[in-house]
């Protein structure tokens, strides 16, 4: 079982977490977001074969939402951090 590094709790079994997909910054939905840009935000994913940034939630733990950089082939984590940090 994958070990997920929670920035609060440290390394924990993946079964404690919910994975919530690739990180996609949300454009402010003001008028100047085109339909194309909005559709890209909603649906398009880089689906990287390599290190990408993703969301995790520590469901059976501290309740933290955090970002992690993980290699999608080896599943090795590079780092994890709170939203707004890097």
């Amino acid at each position, binding site marked *: 079982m*994958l070990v997920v590094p929670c920035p609060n709790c440290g390394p924990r079994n993946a079964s404690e977490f919910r994975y919530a*997909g*690739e990180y996609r910054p949300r454009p402010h939905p003001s008028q100047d977001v085109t339909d194309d840009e909005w559709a890209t935000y909603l649906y*398009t*994913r880089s689906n990287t074969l390599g290190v990408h940034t993703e969301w995790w939630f520590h469901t059976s733990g501290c309740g933290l939402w955090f970002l992690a950089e993980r290699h999608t082939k080896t599943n090795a984590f590079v780092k994890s951090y709170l939203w707004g940090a890097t």
Partner: protein
Amino acid sequence: MWHDRPLKDGYDVVIIGGGAHGLACAHYLAKEHGVTDVAVLDKSYIGSGGSGRNTAIVRSNYLTPEGVRFYDESVKLYEQLAAELEFNVMFSQRGHLTLAHTDGAVRTMRRRAEVNRLQGVDSRLVFPDELAHICPQLDLSEHPRYPIMAALYHPPGGIIRHDAVVWGFANHADRRGVHIHQQTEVTGVDVRDGKVRGVETSRGYVAAETVLNATAGWGSTIAAMAGLELPIATAPLQACVTEPLKPFLDVVVVSGSLHVYVSQSSRGELVMGASVDPFGSYSMNSSLDFVEGLAGHVLELFPFLSKVRILRQWAGLCEMPPDFSPLMGFTPVEGFLLDVGWGTYGFKASPICGKTMAELIATNTTPDLIYPFRLSRFAEFDLVGEKGAASVGH
């Protein structure tokens, strides 16, 4: 069967991915459209991807009229495939049951059954008294958590020998002059002035003005070589088999709430699977969590299997699109075509997918049957409604 041939420096059509989809497309291109200057490239051996890793269930009891129409054509082609390919693909229409454990699931199953019937697909809701006859092995006793309230019964659904489908298509495509190049990995897609010109491979450059991306799992990776990002996310899907047992289970049994499907193969093994892994990955490592969860859910339905042993587990890659429907056809890059985003339901579409993509390539026009699955639907906010049945269903 098929032959090793020299890799030419150009083809009319290059198909990336030697799975059931790519090979079916090559077969129908050659057979129905006389297009034979075709190369099918695979980075490993043919059928090494999703085609050889799925649980070989074929059915057409989808939720949306467009989904049902498409898969019904696929079932019809599968029924004729052994004769067409002169290769026994062992299509075994044993019937397919999708169990409903909640009243909400009963409602969804009825919705599917009604859509199916109106599209001429044999599919109906059955209740425990009839279920006891269709699948007497099911534990229909009182369950606090997962009572079996009803099931969607789809008699034409069944199982098939997945590898045989791959080999049958490969054999026929080869016979008509298609080149099948195994151990040939595409490392780049040559796009100039918005048009595809060829592909870079581990064995050199191959020119082509039509390139089909039929690479379940790596669809985004190949598309990125052509400068495209796709609305798909890759996730592993796992499965396992038990040791061979004397036949006792005739139908395919699926439970959406329990995320499990079970069938007994012609060899006597129970073939079992679940929903995609809880996190996205390109890793094809098996996990213990998967077999632990699966075993619990299988025993919930069939407690008497507790002393049956799991023999082997494996994983394949799936591409999950936002609306549970594939991405087929044209892209903004001229000549670069898609056959990706097949979620957990790609294998069952192989023949019809090959046939319609061949037609698209030969006529440069999208066949009506696959128009709903075009890539541009996302930018047009015209998604397919298959997600309405959001639950596992293989």
